[in-house]
């Protein structure tokens, strides 16, 4: 099915299943431990052996030798394959560092060997016996120094009007530098795979991947084989946050181990290894300049940012939102990639906007203060309904102003203390903050197969559920389209044998894949109509209705199957700008003596088109708010400048938010529809909930203390010298 123009009124506008708060259809499997996650799929193939990875102990250089003799003769060991024994593997489009093979070390803990043994303990013990010698190169991992080299150079990606003139004539200007650190995804389930490539021919991979087809293509590229020899399954994923968009060392090493020993091999990446071996969100340094007239209308926005990457990578483009979010006639945007020897920087939840809004939304707060304006009103004044960098292009839908107004109302914004540092309760300074959220919306072509037999519908697609609720919303979509109760729909996901979908990432999954399932169901309806000789029959209450006859779907003999995909037309990006919007309101307490900041209340208002299921959507948003709290207050991958790696590479020292950090969270969805986005008129919410959260917390901490911190996380050491006397 082609989606070549905005949707008209359709069945989703009369929906009885889509948009309703249905509990997760896979919830029982999860809470009873029956959902098959990759590492625990003991039943899929007999004779599974255990693999254990070995990582490079240096950040850059060459391996001059690996003595694996002790490991090979250790108890239970069935095979050891070192990187020196393997030709460098191919590198797929979106991977940057090589996953295995050859003697070059590009980053710390890059995989250099795999040990396969009969038990996990034997594999791990033998892995420690490898003797590796290196020729070590000097590393450069200093982003601050890189920033000094690149700032002021290069061609802007967006250049509108005359920025310099606008600054010269502005009534009020701001010029500040902001820092965000590197982040690790820290998803609950580590990267894990079981691979059976025993015969070196057909490869079967049970893994934990957000993107089945990308995973398959990447495996084919790595091993130089036909993708049709590879089957990938990933029905359940214990979180990904972008860390599982790409093929990683678990599947590659398990495949190499399996081929070497002629048996299926399973491997989970150990947590302390994962953080430097896999990808992360790059740190950023951002200079933001704002200019406004005396009425608070922005006249110029100048955003220059840098992030780090291995050569050839994408870094973290913190300017992603800046061309689009606020009105201003003059604008300059530039992002520098600084090549460094840290592990591979790549996508993490809302890549770009997360770091960008951490800075931009503090800058907006600072500017509002300079203008003597309420920060909510200042943002409203600078709203735009068109792409400010290309005013001929309207936003498909944009209700940012409503988000701010509704949020201010529900939060009690007008009651807050407006004098920074002016409200104290016992030992706590209390503050309130607001920040805007922006995240671009994107659709990817998405396919599915719908099969009806005996009144039961089965949907098959390689779409994934990374904890987001795909099983549930796809069941709802299919039930709605076929007029069946949800209990008669079974959705099967995450298998490369099934039609290729959008996969899960970039908050494109829900909207793209529901549209794909809708397309497959419409194709199925046509088939059924044809068989019964009906023109445009109706599907309702388990029946097909046409020519004055009501036929229960359960009474139609035989099996009907139809496959289709939703192809999103060019008009979406040519004629419109699609994005999601939100506003975050936060109350914090800052301990007057220690500077510890704790969040006391959070509210998010979201404008993301039709909400397909308020329960799963809310989970996404509150999860984003939790992640944003960690990002604001404690998460930071600490770089060791001499050794060139992230030193706090476990979950004891990389501090994500814990339960005690999270207060009451409220989420409001505006009842908006976006008919440009998909026939369901929905957009993504999975990343929106994270965007802007950290800045709202930073602004609240400023309101509490009067201390402006422009470097994340907002740990107490960044404030303690400026706090009032105890």
């Amino acid at each position: 099915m082609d989606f070549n123009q905005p949707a008209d009124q359709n069945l989703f506008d009369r929906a009885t299943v889509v948009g309703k708060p249905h509990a997760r259809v896979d919830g029982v499997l999860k809470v009873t431990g029956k959902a098959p996650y990759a590492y625990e799929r003991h039943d899929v193939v007999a004779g599974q052996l255990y693999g254990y990875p070995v990582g490079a102990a240096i950040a850059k250089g060459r391996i001059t030798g690996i003595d694996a003799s002790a490991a090979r003769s250790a108890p239970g060991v069935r095979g050891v394959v070192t990187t020196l024994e393997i030709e460098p593997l191919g590198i797929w489009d979106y991977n940057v560092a090589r996953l295995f093979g050859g003697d070059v070390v590009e980053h710390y803990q890059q995989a250099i060997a795999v040990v396969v043994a009969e038990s996990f303990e034997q594999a791990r013990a033998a892995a420690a016996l490898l003797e590796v010698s290196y020729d070590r190169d000097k590393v450069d991992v200093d982003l601050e120094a890189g920033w000094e080299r690149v700032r002021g150079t290069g061609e802007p990606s967006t250049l509108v009007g005359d920025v310099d003139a606008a600054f010269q004539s502005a009534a009020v200007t701001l010029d500040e530098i902001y820092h965000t650190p590197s982040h690790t995804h820290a998803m609950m389930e580590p990267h894990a795979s079981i691979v059976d490539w025993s015969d070196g021919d057909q490869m079967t991979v049970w893994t934990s991947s957000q993107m089945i087809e990308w995973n398959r293509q990447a495996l084919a590229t790595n091993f130089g084989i036909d993708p049709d020899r590879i089957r990938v399954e990933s029905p359940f994923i214990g979180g990904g946050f972008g860390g599982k968009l790409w093929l990683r060392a678990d599947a590659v090493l398990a495949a190499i181990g399996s081929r070497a020993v002629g048996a299926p091999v399973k491997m989970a990446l150990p947590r302390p290894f994962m953080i430097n071996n896999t990808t992360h969100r790059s740190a950023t340094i951002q200079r933001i300049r704002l200019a406004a007239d005396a009425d608070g209308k922005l006249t110029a926005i100048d955003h220059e940012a840098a992030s780090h990457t291995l050569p050839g990578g994408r870094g973290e483009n913190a300017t992603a939102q800046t061309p689009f979010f606020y009105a201003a006639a003059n604008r300059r945007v530039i992002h520098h990639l600084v090549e460094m020897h840290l592990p591979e920087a790549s996508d993490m939840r809302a890549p770009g906007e997360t770091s960008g809004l951490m800075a931009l939304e503090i800058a907006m707060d600072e500017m509002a203060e300079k203008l003597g304006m309420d920060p909510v009103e200042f943002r409203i004044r600078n709203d735009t309904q068109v792409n400010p960098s290309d005013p001929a292009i309207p936003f498909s839908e944009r209700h940012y102003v409503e988000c701010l107004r509704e949020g201010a109302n529900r939060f009690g914004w007008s009651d807050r203390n407006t004098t920074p540092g002016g409200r104290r309760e016992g030992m706590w300074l209390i503050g309130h903050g607001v920040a805007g959220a922006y995240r671009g919306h994107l659709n990817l072509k998405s396919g599915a197969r719908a099969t009806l037999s005996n009144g039961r519908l089965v949907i098959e697609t390689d779409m994934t559920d990374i904890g987001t609720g795909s099983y549930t919303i796809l069941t709802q979509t299919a039930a709605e389209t076929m007029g069946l109760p949800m209990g008669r729909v079974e959705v099967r996901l995450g298998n490369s044998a099934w039609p290729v979908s959008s996969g899960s990432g970039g908050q494109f999954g829900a909207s793209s894949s529901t549209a794909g399932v809708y397309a497959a169901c419409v194709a199925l309806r046509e088939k059924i109509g044809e068989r019964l000789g009906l023109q445009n029959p109706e599907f309702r209450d388990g029946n097909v209705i046409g020519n004055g006859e009501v036929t229960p779907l359960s009474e139609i003999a035989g099996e009907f199957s139809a496959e289709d995909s939703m192809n999103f037309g060019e008009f979406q990006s040519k004629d419109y700008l699609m994005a999601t919007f939100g506003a975050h309101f936060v109350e914090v307490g800052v301990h007057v003596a220690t500077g510890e900041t704790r969040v006391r209340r959070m509210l998010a208002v979201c404008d993301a088109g039709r909400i397909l299921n308020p329960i799963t959507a809310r989970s996404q948003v509150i999860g984003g708010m939790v992640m944003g709290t960690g990002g604001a207050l404690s998460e930071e991958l600490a770089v060791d400048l001499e050794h060139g790696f992230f030193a706090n590479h476990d979950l004891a020292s990389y501090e994500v938010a814990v339960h005690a950090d999270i207060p009451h969270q409220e989420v409001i969805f505006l009842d908006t529809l976006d008919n440009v986005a998909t026939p369901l008129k929905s957009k993504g919410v999975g990343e929106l909930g994270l965007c802007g959260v950290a800045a709202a917390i930073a602004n609240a901490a400023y309101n509490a203390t009067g201390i402006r911190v422009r470097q994340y996380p907002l740990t107490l050491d960044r404030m303690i010298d400026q706090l009032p006397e105890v």
Partner: protein
Amino acid sequence: MRAFSFERASEPAQAAARAAEVPGAKFIAGGTNLLDLMKLEIETPVHLIDVSATGLDRISSTAGGGLRIGAMVTNTDLAADATVRRDYGVLTRALMAGASGQLRNKATTAGNLLQRTRCPYFYDTAMPCNKRVPGAGCAALGKGAFSRQLGIIGTSDTCIATHPSDMAVALRVLDAEVETTTPSGASRTIPLDEFYRLPGDTPEIETALMPGEIITAVTLPPPIGGRQSYHKVRDRASYAFALVSVALIEREDGTGRVALGGVAPEPWRRPQAEAALPDGANAVMSRLLDGATPTEENAFKITLAERTLAAMLAEG
């Protein structure tokens, strides 16, 4: 993790004797620290002696009116003990500020005293660490190293790690003593202020225990009353080691005791510093942290310690 053999001791003296007799042996109690270290091959015992069933899991009164805490009493049970809560409140507070409920259910009194540092480089066997491999060097002292969590006083130029225990900080202000049994079957009592060893040139030696010596109990002198509090400062609200913690006992007359966690290789207390308590936090800390040698990244701990104590005094 290396392969190891395992036995369960039923008596402390027997455990100590076996530990001295079997090369590479180590005691295991709750295992919450030792097993993690073994998985990473930071600790590589070849034989484990489980001491959890040695009958050391009781809390009883001493003849002198104090309290005797068996070495295998769990952190959960110790924190919940009615006498401890009434008479040694700082101990309950410190215990409850540590780790998580699940960990405290397994963690024991002896194991907690002997838990090892959380220095990130100690945890990465690819990095030089004098504590792990004597003479290898100290990655935490390198230029551009991550030292925010590490020590500011009592450290040396071979090691700047801290002792991470919360419980030990409270025990230190309570003047606790450690009771042991040596491999020859003799008993010893070691005051807590002599129990930990500062790193000097030998950061691998952390305590006064001799090889094979087993901790059997921790004793507390009779209650000294006063207002007892424990303030642990950390980046997140729970489940994190202290940046700085302060154990405080304040008496009516303004005198009292203070010890610090998160700053030194041992719970940090100096009698001359607490004599200055009536003069306020600044007076105490300028003595308690006199001679501190922080890194650029952790110099804030000095200010933080003082402000934390000031808040505790002000709250009184």
